[in-house]
């Protein structure tokens, strides 16, 4: 047997669920104003089905829930519809669902707008009228949704309850008796927490793509680090190495009094490998390698280059490296001639340039000197005039007598010449 609690106009089902939890652990939050639950086996405690229903009514009244309707039926849908359509306490005897629900309006089924309109046009107002129609004809005209409504109108239904998902928090914290100054003992504690959290993730079928570490420090503000991973993982060893490498690069400035670790749960990555898909680095190994490279090269010096949407010469950004998965069906269609690539001087080399008649004739800079034997330009470009770092320049391609080829420019604001790149 199933019971339904319905309080019209209620926006938070938590209070209804709290009342239902006193009677049964098997609860479904059907809607914001309706809760359905299994009352099988309660006869020993409360007596008959009618007694259970009245006990429920007393419990909801005691909880201060206004106009709470209680219905008991042999299936969850019949209980819900009876509660929605009838005030007070309703007990639907097994086998009597069609007769009890018959006078209720179609609206208790909550039909889709289009179907409700069609039924209204047909003059179907109550569940009994709908149940009286032939099922085959309803299915033919209204499809599977119509057939479902017809079944509900007859009070038939045997679906299982859908329990609410419990909200699990993947966090853990540890207060220390003595402040920690070295990273090594911290690693042991982190390893313990990470093992527990990853086991919890594993048990719930999740992985994590973000780890937040908060270290409470002695006489200093908390030290917070956030590791964002391009791929979800749940390997505690990999997480420990990543967190340790990050702390190695960004050590806390004071002794540690407490630590807290939180993980953002997401669905694990599912990859279908193929025989003909090119090899790619393993995500976990790649993450560890990137963390080690960042430790050597410095923050922001390793990643994938991205060209921003601007005309500013030489503009680029470095974003986290996360190569897209290879597509086995994609064919290599590249058949283009090689392009002359440039090697950029960062920052651009200041140069002394003789430019009679405005054309570069001789160049002298750090390690580069010679007569200009051919040149193309000037190409005038400017932009970002509304910003402080506006740019405006005349650009040239020049070939020197020794065969070298450079891209140079004259900054129009300062009048100075710079060597920007060498074609190589």
């Amino acid at each position, binding site marked *: 047997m199933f019971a339904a609690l319905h309080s019209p106009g209620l926006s938070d089902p938590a209070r209804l669920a709290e009342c239902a939890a006193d009677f049964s652990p098997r609860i479904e939050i059907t809607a914001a104003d309706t809760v359905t639950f299994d009352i099988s086996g309660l006869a020993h405690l409360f007596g008959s089905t009618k007694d259970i229903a009245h006990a429920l009514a007393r419990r909801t009244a005691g909880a201060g829930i206004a106009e709470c309707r209680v219905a008991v039926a042999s299936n969850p849908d019949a209980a819900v519809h009876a509660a929605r359509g009838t005030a007070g306490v309703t007990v639907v005897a097994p086998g009597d669902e069609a007769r009890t629900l018959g006078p209720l309006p179609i609206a208790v089924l909550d039909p889709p707008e289009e179907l409700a309109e069609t039924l209204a046009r047909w003059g179907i107002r109550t569940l009994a009228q709908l149940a009286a129609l032939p099922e085959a004809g309803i299915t033919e005209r209204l499809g599977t949704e119509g057939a479902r409504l017809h079944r509900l109108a007859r009070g038939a239904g045997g679906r299982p309850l859908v329990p609410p998902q419990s909200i699990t928090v993947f966090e853990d914290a540890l207060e220390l008796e003595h402040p920690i100054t070295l990273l090594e003992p911290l690693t042991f504690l982190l390893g313990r927490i990470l093992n527990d959290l990853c086991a919890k993730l594993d048990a719930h079928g999740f992985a994590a793509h973000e780890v937040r570490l908060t270290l409470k420090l002695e006489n200093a503000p908390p030290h917070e680090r956030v590791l964002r991973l391009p791929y979800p993982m749940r390997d505690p060893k990999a997480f420990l190495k990543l967190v340790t490498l990050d702390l190695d690069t960004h050590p806390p400035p004071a002794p540690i009094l407490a630590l807290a670790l939180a993980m953002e749960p997401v669905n694990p990555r599912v990859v279908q490998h193929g025989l003909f898909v090119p090899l790619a680095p393993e995500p976990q190994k790649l993450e560890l390698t990137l963390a080690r490279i960042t430790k050597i090269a410095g923050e922001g010096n390793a990643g994938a280059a991205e060209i921003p949407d601007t005309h500013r010469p030489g503009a680029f950004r*470095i974003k986290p490296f996360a190569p897209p998965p290879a597509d086995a069906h994609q064919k290599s269609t590249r058949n283009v001639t090689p392009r002359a690539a440039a090697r950029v001087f960062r920052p651009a080399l200041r140069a002394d340039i003789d430019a009679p008649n405005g054309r570069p004739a001789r160049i002298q800079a750090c390690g580069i000197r010679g007569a200009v034997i051919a040149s193309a330009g000037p190409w005038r470009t400017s932009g970002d005039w509304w910003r402080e770092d506006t740019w405006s320049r005349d650009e040239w391609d020049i070939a020197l007598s020794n065969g070298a080829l450079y891209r140079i420019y004259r900054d129009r604001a300062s009048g100075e010449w710079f060597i920007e790149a060498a074609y190589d």
Partner: protein
Amino acid sequence: MQSSALLKARIEAFLGAPHLTWRARPAPELLPTGIPGLELPRGAISDVYGPPCSGRTSLLTAALAEATARQEVCALIDATDSFEPASAAAAGSDLDRILWVRCGGRPDKALKIADLIIQAGGFGLVALDLAGIAPAVARRIPLASWYRFRRAIENTPAAMLIIEREPTAKAAASLVIEMRRGGVEWSGAPDCSRLLRGLRIEAVPRKPAARESVRFDARASA
């Protein structure tokens, strides 16, 4: 050749099995660069050297473009922070598949990072750009480093490409190519409508030496 024949005779005598047949080492799989005749061997080091403006970087970007078009993941260890992403994108590279590491003019860092990347595995092309490092500094890189790279990369599907001014990997490299300036192509009239059209490049294989030179044009980006 004589010493290998002598060695073979001594082994045959020791084993008591005359006429041993030596199994030839299988030819390495090649990674195309998009330039016919300049394929890079996988599982080996390719050393490309030459003076500035001789086409080393054009060859590098061509190899990156070709490898990323095959959906392979590549790494570029840029010792002097000279890589121009726009050039690589114009050459057809998928920048999302290229791990670019900037080493700020520190070849020691570049070598450490190259080691990490090779050990991680899964990369189709590992490029080490030492072209901006002065030859005197590059010569100080111990030969043991190159042999270490060779041992680490052999039996993997990765090709390692080093570009530099002078050959430093020496015997550790399976392919050594000298790049030479072949001239500059212009269009239009001088002092009026001249446009850079591209570079003429000559690639001379030094190891194995039996191969012929390859000449190709690298077109300037529009």
